[in-house]
């Protein structure tokens, strides 16, 4: 009975948002993960080897697609350089403060995945960056394809990442990601805050009635509210229907990033001056 009470107290206490963990947690978490990393990567390499042999046939097609993309990228880059120069000049003329200028400058730090938890209610994976590398809770984690998850707990040398499949508006500390649609950035707005495990779709809520969002659009983070960086790809819109109360719309979004068996991810670290002013 006493055990039950103690456990409920521990669960309740550990439920909330904690920026720092106590030293026993840090010690155990880090030392076990240190051992885990010896196993996860070799296993991944071996599994990847078989995958590669199977994928050999698709590589030719992929190569062709990449060549088309590369040529398009070269063209876009020229336009981008002009636009950036123009933008910087305008910012100077309008007297932007240092903080405002740095607001959208992010650092992408590569991290290796060292272990994965398979528990469906608490799926998480561990990356080999921690608070000593400047990682903080709620930072966005992306793979080359798109948004993967958010940092949930930070140990000194490693940290735990909760994938976006764990988004849940009812949970005690819900996380919501403000999102918009690529090429319609100013016109479209919604909040990605839920994941339907049965269909494997993210749900984007609170879309206005006259929103131009349509099926097949690419959803990206909007950066509004300054909690999450902007311009990270989330997924593509699969369907759009009237939401719960009939006033707003809800869209089902297929995540573009592969969420299982990751080996390398990037943590998006906002520039220091940008976050200090924008912390909610």
């Amino acid at each position, binding site marked *: 009975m006493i055990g039950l009470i103690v*456990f409920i107290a521990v669960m309740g206490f550990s439920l909330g948002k904690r920026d720092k963990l106590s030293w026993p947690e840090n010690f155990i978490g880090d030392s076990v993960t240190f051992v885990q990393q010896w196993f996860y990567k070799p296993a991944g390499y071996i599994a990847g080897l078989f995958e590669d042999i199977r994928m050999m046939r698709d590589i030719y097609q992929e190569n062709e697609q990449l060549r088309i993309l590369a040529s398009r990228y070269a063209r876009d880059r020229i336009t981008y350089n002009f636009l950036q120069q123009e933008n910087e000049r305008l910012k100077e003329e309008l007297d932007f403060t240092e903080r405002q200028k740095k607001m959208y400058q992010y650092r992408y730090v590569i991290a290796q995945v060292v272990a994965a938890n398979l528990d469906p209610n608490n*799926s998480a994976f561990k990356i080999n960056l921690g608070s000593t590398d400047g990682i903080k809770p709620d930072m966005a984690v992306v793979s080359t394809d798109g948004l993967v998850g958010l940092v949930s707990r930070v140990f000194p040398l490693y940290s735990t990442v909760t994938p976006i499949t764990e988004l849940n508006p009812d949970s005690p500390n819900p996380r919501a990601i403000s999102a918009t649609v690529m090429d319609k950035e100013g016109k479209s707005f919604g909040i990605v805050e839920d994941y339907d495990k049965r269909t494997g779709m993210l749900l984007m809520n609170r879309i206005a009635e006259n929103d131009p969002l349509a099926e097949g659009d690419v959803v990206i983070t909007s950066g509004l509210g300054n909690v999450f960086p902007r311009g990270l790809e989330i997924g593509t819109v699969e369907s759009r229907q009237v939401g719960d109360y009939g006033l707003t719309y809800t869209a089902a979004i297929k995540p573009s990033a592969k969420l299982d068996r990751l080996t390398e991810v990037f943590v998006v670290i906002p520039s220091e001056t940008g976050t200090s002013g924008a912390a909610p």
Partner: protein
Amino acid sequence: MNLRWAVLFMFLLFIVESTIVPWLIPDALYGRLVPHFVFVFVLYSALYTGRHTALMLGLFFGLLQDIVFYGNMLGVHAFSMGLGGYLTGLLLERKRSPLLMALSIIGFASLLYDSLVYLIYKVFRIAQEPYAYFLIDSIMPSLFLQLGFALAVYIPARRLFEGSGKPSAGQEE
């Protein structure tokens, strides 16, 4: 002295569970098939050593799982694993458990364990899906995985735990 080896082996299993097993599970079952190899060992220790050993092992490895994959809260696995091990020990500690008996007990205990974890998450509103869906989607496939593993390690686990803890049991053999 055998218990030391058991703990070491269980720690190794714990590592394997989260590092090598994810690469072996087929795509269709990923995220649904949940290995609880350590829990199977906790149950073996309950059956063949004693309920207090099982309780301690369960608490220790449950807490390890909780801390290492600290996503939402601590203590869920520690509580469920400890309770599962202790109850099993309480029921069957003094009886002789042949293979079939052990397997069925492990099956039931795994069901209990998964359900308990789900229930705790449900109470704290972290789990969203209804129980029936979760039961079919995840608990049932995992149950077969646990049973398969339990069958595979039955003989070594029994040797390991029967020799440890209670010296009287070792002398009878």
